[in-house]
């Protein structure tokens, strides 16, 4: 009996919060593997840097949905690593803690604080006049090309396509068919590979998704032009041959990735691609360049994205959570050696990504492990870097645009009909969303 009681006491003692006198806060983040280990290093650095707060890092799959449910249940993590798209929809529903007051308490205005990041990433942090989150790691995207395949096709391996016309022309030259069966064995470029930026094609063509008030999917001629271009690829190489060829593609993170295995010569990919190439196809000879230019004043076009750190509404330790988020955004501007890297630069160095901060330390700039980091930085600085539109129904809107893209590449119905459907549907949805916001307006 006494043994049982002792066991119970020990168990209960195990359930109590640690009694080290420090505030323990929870941090849910999507990363596992090397990316998770990089963030864990920053967490450890923060925990060592002071003796008041301990951050407990928890790798969480489907972090958006879990944060949603935990916030609804009133027991969210203190810090959540969200995707940008979640931030706008959560913010519209008051599920996040505004960061403006924390920033002001540091002696800065929100504008001054955000001024330390590249504009494209700073812009992603605020929505409807409030700062809701700050960056963890950012990314920009670029055209990656396989130099060996360029050489084999008689193209200059150091000269990527610079315009859309060149991209299409090179794609043609880089495409090979089996002489016997006529089946495609290599493609120069395919708009649906990897298909992650299909929503951005209208913006690349100079179109817009909304004008600040109304949805403009079908009213912008450039949007239609983008999908006509997608359809032209299917017309040129054939629906069935493309379907058969692409069905043999392996997973993105594998040696059978179509770009890494040499099945596709050019892809639009993010700064992370180098990590995967080093892991699965270390000898691959490739180059990176900005997205080919379509409009005359559109040099260095790129799609930027950024993972964001936010404090869910109802978090038990918002002050401590802010202290950690602030630490992640800090750097040691004088770092000369790897061990001197701090906060954001340690994280981005380990994850081999660019830093979202304008200021880079000498070590981070000169010894970055990514061989093409300079180009990705140049793209982050670009005035033509775009990010997802900041509207609370963007997930739904993107799904509709994906459907328009699917329609174009499968040549199912005229592209203007598909865009008109998207316009009707999202306009209704947008009105519904606005009504919902008005119902809850203070």
């Amino acid at each position, binding site marked *: 009996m006494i043994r049982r009681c002792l066991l119970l006491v020990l168990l209960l003692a195990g359930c109590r919060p640690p009694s080290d006198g420090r505030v323990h806060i929870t941090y849910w983040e999507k990363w596992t593997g090397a990316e998770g280990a990089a963030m864990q290093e920053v967490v450890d650095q923060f925990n060592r840097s002071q003796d008041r707060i301990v951050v407990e890092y928890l790798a969480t799959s489907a972090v958006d*949905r879990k944060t*949603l*449910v935990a*916030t*609804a249940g009133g027991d969210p993590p203190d810090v959540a690593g969200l995707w940008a798209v979640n931030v706008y*929809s*959560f913010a519209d*529903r*008051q*599920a996040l803690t505004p960061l403006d007051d924390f920033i002001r308490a540091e002696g800065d205005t929100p504008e001054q604080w955000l001024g330390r990041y590249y504009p494209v990433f700073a812009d992603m942090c605020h929505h409807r006049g409030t700062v809701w989150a700050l960056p963890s790691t950012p990314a920009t995207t670029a055209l990656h090309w396989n130099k060996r395949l360029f050489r084999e096709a008689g193209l200059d391996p150091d000269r990527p396509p610079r315009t859309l016309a060149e991209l299409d022309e090179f794609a043609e030259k880089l495409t090979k068919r089996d002489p016997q069966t006529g089946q495609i064995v290599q493609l120069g470029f395919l708009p649906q590979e990897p298909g992650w930026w299909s929503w951005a094609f209208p913006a690349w063509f100079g179109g817009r998704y909304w004008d600040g008030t109304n949805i403009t999917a079908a009213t912008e001629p450039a949007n239609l032009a983008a999908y006509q271009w997608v359809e032209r690829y299917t017309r040129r190489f054939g629906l*069935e041959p493309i*379907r*058969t*060829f*692409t*069905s*043999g593609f392996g997973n993105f993170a594998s040696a059978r990735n179509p770009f890494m295995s040499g099945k596709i010569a050019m892809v639009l990919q993010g700064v992370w691609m180098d990590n995967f190439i080093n892991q699965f196809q270390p000898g691959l000879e490739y180059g990176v360049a900005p997205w080919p230019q379509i409009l005359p004043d559109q040099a260095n076009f790129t799609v930027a994205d950024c993972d964001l750190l936010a404090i869910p*509404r109802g978090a038990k330790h918002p002050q401590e959570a802010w202290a950690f988020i602030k630490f992640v955004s800090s750097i040691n501007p004088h770092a000369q050696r790897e061990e001197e890297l701090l906060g954001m630069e340690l994280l981005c160095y380990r994850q081999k990504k660019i830093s979202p901060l304008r200021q880079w330390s000498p070590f981070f700039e000169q010894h970055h492990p990514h061989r093409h980091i300079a180009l990705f930085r140049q793209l982050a600085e670009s005035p033509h870097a775009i990010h997802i539109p900041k509207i609370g*129904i963007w*997930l*739904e809107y993107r*799904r509709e645009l*994906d*459907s328009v893209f*699917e*329609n174009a590449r*499968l040549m*199912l119905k005229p592209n203007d009909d598909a865009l008109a*459907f998207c316009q009707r*549907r999202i306009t209704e*949805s947008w009105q*519904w969303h606005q*009504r*919902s916001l008005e*119902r*809850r307006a203070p």
Partner: protein
Amino acid sequence: MTTREKRHLRNGLLFCAPWFIGLGLFTAYPVVASLFYSFCDYSVLQSPVWSGTENYRRMAGDTLFWLSLKNTIIYALLSLPAGMIVALSLALLLNTEVRGMPVFRTIFYLPSIVPMVASAMLWLWIFNGQFGLLNWALLPILDLFGLKPPGWLGDPTWAKPALALMSLWGVGNSMVIHLAGLQNVPKELYEAAEIDGAGTWRRFWHVTLPMISPVLYFNLIMGIIGSLQVFATVFVMTGGADGAPARSTLFYALYLFSVSFYDLRMGYGCAMAWVLFILIVALTVVATKLTEKRVHYAT
């Protein structure tokens, strides 16, 4: 009621209490709450606001709601009869007296216990347009007629039939129920039919089918419910809730999930769930009425 009976009643209720509480808290309450939420503007993140029949009215004009319903019904019409026929045929084969029958029964049941995601991954390869086992087998046959095998999951026309075909992989459970039903058919009925001169087909039609009709009815109802709620396999095989390719596999449960958890319109999701519930009840009643005269229960 004597004191003893009262004590027994109290003890009985106490023993049942965990289940009553569990059922009330985790099943009955959410079900009732979802009915209330279906009349609300509710995102989970904020308190529900009463919006009357807005969700239901919007559903009536929602093209994707109707498309998802249509896709689901087509899938059910493909997978349900096929599943019933295959399960019954396998059960009939496994009911014959052959040496090593327990081994055959185990083999045919095995796919049902393979985890869903693992079998989905396996079928993704079987349906692969270029290297898939299915097209490898079909190619020489179709080639004779100058035809080409379809791209299955990559082709909007063939994605639903492909998923219906894959659903046959999981007929093991209904097969076992059919088999149990077949084994309960009294031998003397077959003997009597044989003496009356009935052949194999007549014995099947006039003895087996009527005798196992309650089992067929049960499997039919479970099949209707299962096929209208199909979710996980499609979610894994088509890479999310978009119903790729080109929304040809946007089934009801996928659309419901997507509006509730991605678009944060939980009120609309609850309304969709109630419509599905009413639809399933209606189909069950129709199925019961239609089969009333053909289902025979042993008395």
